[in-house]
């Protein structure tokens, strides 16, 4: 045998052993069981499945956009099918979400999940979810919820087994070399914790603490950080009524639930990448063309592929409801039934408090006693997709009487967070799904702790309401802070002295004592993360709300539209798609007033002035790139002077900047001192230079065009592929929001946060209008992975879901069997 043949024999054996030696290659080498094989996973399933012990029957009708309409003769069959179908469309996403909340993300995606796991475990979220499930299981009143969660879990698990045995696992598992673990009811409950982390967790108190440390407590007053007088409130106190006068009975969150358990984490707000803003509004039947209320909602969250939301229509004996859910939740989170429609925006109030202590020999002082912190130890198994093995990471969490300790660089703060305790948000959502009236929807809020939302709700009888309510901690023993302009009470915006027992939580403020609007004289109510109330009726809860710009713009648009005649769903669509950005206009005005007009700058200041005449953020606009880049760098440079770094820059609201500029122009000494020797004129000029350098580099000397640098980036978190790349109109505070991730010479200003879904309801019909930035399928090989994005969301159109429309033959049937 020739040497070539011998060598070939040896080489072929070595080569063929490659998949065994390097298993991470298998997903790429195997065209059937590896990554490409995910293309064989069907979009829609057909046939009849006999399920042992299942009571009733459920039928699934997919429409041409792959939206499943589920009709069941029993709740059990209905929720079983919701689980099966949700898993068939979004199994990996469900797995990902449950793991974020339960602190075992790195067991799936590897070391990239470690920071998130440390936070969730430190906060004690797994224990909170287990405790919540025990509460549901043991309460006879909640047996319907328990059964629904169990049926849903069974449906998910049956699909997992079906997919595993038929080689139909999603692409992400193929790449990672893992299989899904069974689903349990606690996994559905964990989604509420994920939403709390996304929407209610922040470290603003610590950021403000750093500002006070650097500049003294006067900065709180000088930059109007608590009262926010420039802000535009959602609602007037003159129209408010106490929630207790609308709803009856006892508040569950004050009696059934204990005060929030506690948490801790690293200093970083790692969930800020998800985004936490939104718009919603409700229109009174008095100004609606249909004679019934109109309701619109677009939550602003991360734009991901697949999208955060899944469209479902569920019809069982107890509910007939349509809208969107977060995969993993058996019920509709935002949407409508035949009688009631509802929508949420986040209340940017203060749901996290930090406590510091006097320490000695490893003990902390608490009200005169030296106490030993308790400790908990966790083991995190971190998956390594390359070696196909786990490594173990251990973390130790120390806790004080207030909660877990957040320890960083020798400092230690204990933390309390409303989202870290056991809570019954799932009951709130289920009861919303079943509500027949606005009153019943408000009643459901008694089960709602976190993340507190601006709820707008309307019913087919013509009632409308606004209730920004949920779990507001009742704080006691509040310290007073002395400023040169008077005393202010620390209501939780700065860390408390835990050794003195400051800022203790005594449960939650009773829901009955919180204000709401119920059939107000107002023709409409709009919310967009601003402060909820224009006066003291809001009890002074919260401080670092979003700037006024979207709230103001929505109210302007609603007023303009209603002055032209009765409002219609087309008006709702037009408002949701509006791209004018008042914040860029405010910043452009500031820059134009601060920048000296000389040979270097005159051209650009003139451009700003010209743009302010017609402040367009259309994708073909030639000046908007300058406005965006200049504003971005100016805001960042001022913040850097104040804070010492560009970290946490989104703490610094434009209204804070306006207060600083006003003080500076009035010649206030504090304003100059905050700038550390620089002047605002210098910062305006240096940020102009930085913007021009970025634009020249990005456009390569060619013509500026907004949509070329400001574009959607909608990426799969594991597979990294992007479904978008399309030009994005709008800006950080347009109603159709499009905040750039940053402004950079090489990548431009990509947008990865935006309207995560748009929903519009007209209570005179059974129709729900929806625009989803993706598709129903989580499979990147499916045409339904991005068809709603291209067909509706991007083009300003809406998918129409009529809850009373008939269907053809069912594709899929689940029925009981022996």
């Amino acid at each position, binding site marked *: 045998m020739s040497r070539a043949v011998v060598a*070939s024999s040896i080489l072929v054996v070595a080569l063929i052993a490659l998949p065994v030696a390097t298993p991470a290659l*298998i997903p790429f080498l195997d065209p*059937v069981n590896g990554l490409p094989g995910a293309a064989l996973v069907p979009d829609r399933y057909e046939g009849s499945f006999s399920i042992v012990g299942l009571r009733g029957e459920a039928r699934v009708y997919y429409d041409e956009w792959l939206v499943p309409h589920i009709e069941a003769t029993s709740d059990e069959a209905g929720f079983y099918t919701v689980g099966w179908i949700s898993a068939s469309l979004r199994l990996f996403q469900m797995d990902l979400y449950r793991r974020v909340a339960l602190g075992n993300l790195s067991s799936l995606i590897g070391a990239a999940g470690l920071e998130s796991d440390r936070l969730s475990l430190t906060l004690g979220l797994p224990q909170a979810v287990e405790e919540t499930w025990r509460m549901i299981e043991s309460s006879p009143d909640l047996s319907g919820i328990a059964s629904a969660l169990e049926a849903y879990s069974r449906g998910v698990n049956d699909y997992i087994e079906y997919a595993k045995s038929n080689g139909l696992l999603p692409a992400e598992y193929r790449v990672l070399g893992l299989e899904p673990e069974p689903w349990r009811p606690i996994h559905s409950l964990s989604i509420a914790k994920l939403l709390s982390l996304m929407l209610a967790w922040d470290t603003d108190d610590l950021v403000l603490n750093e500002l006070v440390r650097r500049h003294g407590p006067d900065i709180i007053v000088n930059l109007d950080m608590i009262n926010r007088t420039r802000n535009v409130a959602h609602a007037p106190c003159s129209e408010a009524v106490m929630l207790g006068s609308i709803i009856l009975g006892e508040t569950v969150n004050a009696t059934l639930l204990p005060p929030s358990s506690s948490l801790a984490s690293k200093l970083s707000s790692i969930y800020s990448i998800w985004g936490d803003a939104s718009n919603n509004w409700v229109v009174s039947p008095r100004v609606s063309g249909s004679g019934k209320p109109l309701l619109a909602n677009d939550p602003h969250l991360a734009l991901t592929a697949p999208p955060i939301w899944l469209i479902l229509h569920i019809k069982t004996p107890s509910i007939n409801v349509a809208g969107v859910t977060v995969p993993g939740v058996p019920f509709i989170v935002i949407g409508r039934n035949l009688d009631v429609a509802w929508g949420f925006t986040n209340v940017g109030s203060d749901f996290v408090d930090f406590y510091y202590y006097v320490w000695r020999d490893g003990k902390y002082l608490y009200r005169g006693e030296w106490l030993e912190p308790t400790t908990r130890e966790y083991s995190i198994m971190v998956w390594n997709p390359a070696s196909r093995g786990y490594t173990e990471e251990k973390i130790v969490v120390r806790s004080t009487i207030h909660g877990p300790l957040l320890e960083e660089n020798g400092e230690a703060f204990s933390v309390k967070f409303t989202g870290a305790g056991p809570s019954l948000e799932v009951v709130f959502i289920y009861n919303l799904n079943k509500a027949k009236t606005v009153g019943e929807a408000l009643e459901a809020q008694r089960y709602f702790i976190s993340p507190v939302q601006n709820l707008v709700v309307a019913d087919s009888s013509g009632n409308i309401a606004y209730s920004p309510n949920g779990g507001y901690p009742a704080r006691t023993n509040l310290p007073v802070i002395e400023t040169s302009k008077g005393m202010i009470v620390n209501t939780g915006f700065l860390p408390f002295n835990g050794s003195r027992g400051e800022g203790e939580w005594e449960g939650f403020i009773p829901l009955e004592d919180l204000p709401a609007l119920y059939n107000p004289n107002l023709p409409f109510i709009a919310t967009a993360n601003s402060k909820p109330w224009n006066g003291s009726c809001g009890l002074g809860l919260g401080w670092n709300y979003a700037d006024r710009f979207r709230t103001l713009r929505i109210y302007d648009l609603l007023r303009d539209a209603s002055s032209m005649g009765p409002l219609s769903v087309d008006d709702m669509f037009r408002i949701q798609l509006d791209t004018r950005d008042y914040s860029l206009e405010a910043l452009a005005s500031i820059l134009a007033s601060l920048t000296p007009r000389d040979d270097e700058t005159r051209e650009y200041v003139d451009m700003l002035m010209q743009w302010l005449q017609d402040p367009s953020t259309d994708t073909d606009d030639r000046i908007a790139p300058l406005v965006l880049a200049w504003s971005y760098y100016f805001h960042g440079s001022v913040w850097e002077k104040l804070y010492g770094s560009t970290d946490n820059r989104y703490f610094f609201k434009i209204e804070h900047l306006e207060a600083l500029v006003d003080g500076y122009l009035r010649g206030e000494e504090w304003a100059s001192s905050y700038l550390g020797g620089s002047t605002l004129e210098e910062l305006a000029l240096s940020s102009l230079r930085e913007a021009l350098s970025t634009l020249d580099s990005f456009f390569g000397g060619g013509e500026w065009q907004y949509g070329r640098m400001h574009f959607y980036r909608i990426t799969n978190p594991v597979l990294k592929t992007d479904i978008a790349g399309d030009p994005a109109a709008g800006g950080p505070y347009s109603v159709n929001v499009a905040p750039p991730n940053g402004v950079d010479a090489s990548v431009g200003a990509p947008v990865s946060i935006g309207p995560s879904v748009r929903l519009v309801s007209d209570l005179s019909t059974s129709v729900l209008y929806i625009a989803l930035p993706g598709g129903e399928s989580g499979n990147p090989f499916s045409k339904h992975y991005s068809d709603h994005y291209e067909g509706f969301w991007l083009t300003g159109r809406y998918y129409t879901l009529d809850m009373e429309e008939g269907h053809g033959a069912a594709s899929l049937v689940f029925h009981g069997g022996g």
Partner: protein
Amino acid sequence: MVRGIVAAVLGVALYTVIVYLLPSPLNIMVAPLVSGVIASLWAGSSSLLKAFLAGTCIGVTSYLALLIYTGSLPTALAISLELAGPLGVVVPLLYHGVATGLASVAASGVIRR
């Protein structure tokens, strides 16, 4: 000529069927060996280079045929490029082509003896 065509078709058919039916990673280990033997029949005993090229051709064709059959070609390439760069595309082609080519050379040697 006819023997070549038959061997090529048979090689690709066997390759794809084996990859499709056997569990992973056995499928991608066995298929190059079996089709390598078929490729060596196509090449005959004339030249080891010819045997290698015949095997490579069958391996690459089979791999691409499976990507086309599953309908995954553009998306799979895009994801592979994102996750592993150009190697994500080149390595699978090399693996299927070279493994089958080498198997074909080895089989040719056995046939010659």
